[in-house]
């Protein structure tokens, strides 16, 4: 049995079936990321694991113990909230020691743990301040510190970076990855940002409409998406998906064919697998994204990623070839078709 086990976990509200039977096995020390569009149920699922939402069906096991209906505090989990949820009337030190104080840990031990966590998070000089007097990044670290001092079996993060600006987000992401390596703690991290998912996760869980679309390492999801939804959700810019008949290589039962922007090459107009006119050229320096309307059809716009700087402008006519070995085929129900075509 794995460390944290979700077995057919369900959640329904009065007239809404939010989480439709989730099975997921998480190993000790793993960094798991729940990702999906807003409303997919990822935060709800996290809050169910935390004990902040009732689990209406199924079972939740942690380290061999059934915690399906345990009080949040008795689950041996710690959570970092999106808004940080620091206690505004307490100092950083008090915020971090609150849980231990409630658990009647001795003051000496509390002091020791808080100091160690503060050191790890670069917060030592801020211990006497209140959250109001801290920057966003510092508050974020206090929230993490509050979780660390409890040495929980599992860390839960609910979109922890969404309140930070872009630069700080990147930096904090690296810090969280570093912290995870250092502590080796099992972590579940919810985000809607696929960059966070791809860079942090050992395994990514893609959720949609209260069910798991796919579980796998970041590269598995990228290279072999289980269905059209995952294929389009992972990867920036999105995978191009067009009707299969436009392509030369076919696959039995495939209705649509997908190809990632970097697996395409430009050729002369009329000679490509696909042909069309350039809608826009985005030059990003290291790469160039060329938006092309296939057969002049705006509904069939694709993006080609080039690592050189082509001499193109809007309105130019071009042809495009797709790398036949990197095509993804999708059946009418959206599921991916693999194997010999």
């Amino acid at each position, binding site marked *: 049995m794995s460390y944290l086990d979700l077995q057919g976990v369900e959640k329904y*509200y009065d007239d809404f079936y939010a989480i439709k039977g989730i099975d997921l096995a998480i190993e000790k020390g793993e960094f798991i990321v729940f990702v999906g569009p807003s409303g997919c149920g990822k935060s709800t699922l996290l*809050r169910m694991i935390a*004990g*902040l*939402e*009732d689990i209406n069906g199924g079972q939740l096991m942690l380290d061999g113990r059934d915690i399906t209906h345990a009080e949040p505090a008795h689950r041996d989990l710690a959570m970092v909230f999106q808004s940080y949820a620091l206690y505004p009337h307490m100092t950083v030190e008090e915020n971090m020691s609150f849980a231990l104080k409630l658990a009647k840990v001795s003051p000496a031990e509390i002091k020791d743990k808080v100091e160690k966590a503060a050191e790890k998070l670069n917060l030592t000089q801020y211990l006497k301040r209140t959250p109001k007097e801290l920057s966003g990044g510092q508050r974020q670290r206090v929230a993490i510190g509050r979780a660390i001092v409890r040495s929980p079996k599992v860390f839960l993060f609910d979109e922890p970076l969404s309140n930070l600006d872009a630069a700080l987000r990147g930096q904090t992401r690296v810090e969280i990855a570093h912290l995870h390596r250092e502590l080796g703690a099992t972590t579940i991290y919810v985000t809607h940002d696929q960059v966070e998912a791809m860079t942090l996760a050992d395994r990514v869980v893609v959720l949609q409409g209260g069910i798991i679309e796919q579980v796998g390492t970041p590269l598995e999801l990228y290279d072999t998406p289980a269905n059209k939804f995952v294929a389009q959700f992972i990867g920036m810019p999105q995978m191009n998906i067009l009707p299969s008949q436009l392509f030369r290589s076919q696959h039995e039962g495939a209705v649509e064919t997908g190809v990632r922007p970097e697996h395409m090459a430009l050729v002369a107009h009329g000679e490509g697998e696909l042909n069309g006119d350039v809608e826009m050229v985005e030059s990003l320096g290291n790469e160039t994204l060329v938006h092309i309307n296939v057969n002049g059809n705006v509904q069939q716009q694709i993006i080609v990623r080039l690592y050189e700087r082509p001499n193109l402008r809007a309105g130019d006519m071009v042809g495009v070839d797709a790398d036949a070995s990197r095509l993804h085929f999708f059946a009418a129900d959206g599921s991916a078709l693999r194997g010999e075509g």
Partner: protein
Amino acid sequence: MSSQARGNRTTSRLLMSPAVISLLLWMLVPLGMTIYFSLIYYNLMNPFLEGWAGLSNYEFFISNPAFGDAVWNTLLLLGSTVVITVGLGLAIALLINDPFPGRGLVRILLISPFFVMPTVNALLWKHMMMNPIYGFLAQVWTFFGAEPVDWLTDLPLFSVIIMVSWQWLPFACLIFITSLQSMDREQLEAARMDGANFLQQFRYLYVPHLARSISVVIMIEVIFLLSIFAEIYTTTAGGPGTESTNFAFLIFTEALLNFDVGVASAGALFAIILANIVAIFLIRMIGKNLEN
């Protein structure tokens, strides 16, 4: 978002029960007794008259010519006070919204009437302000060469409206000031760039921003003004005639001056119905505004 019930629904009900049960009793016990009294003959001056009265108490109360006046006076008193306090309150709030020397003291002077008890308010206006001979207003009228007004005799209801408005204007005013403090300056600047004059700014920026506060003020005032009693009791005693008798005072007259508990109870039920009509109307109109 329904989070897992902390300590579940039972705890929640337990926490609410003292408030809910006491209010339920507070409402139902008097209501039940009132309904009972309204159906029997019950006159303290005439203990021999007893027994089932049917609806005769109601008929008696409605056929009292004061009934219509009382309904009208109640609504007029309520409506005028709300209009006056909200209108003037907005004007004054806008006037002192921007800083000026002594603003803190002005705030304190302005809010003072809100803390004055209704009996003092009434006596202060009845005697020292509105007395037709010695009153301060009479002196002002005389100073301008006008004939002093005998306020409580000639304009009894209006006089009561003045007193009540004086008491509630500070409340409205200060709520609006507090609300104005949170007004978005950039929005106003943008409006000025767009060429909006003050009236347009007022209409399109201030009023929408203040909508919730206005709702709160109206709600609170209705709650307190629907049954104004002390001001009338201490000044006009409902008169002359029934010119300043509101519903609350009419029932009081029946109960404690005519000692007719049966008729007073019938009246009380009418008052409750009136209050509910106003309440439903109000909650429909304003309740929405109070939600997030």
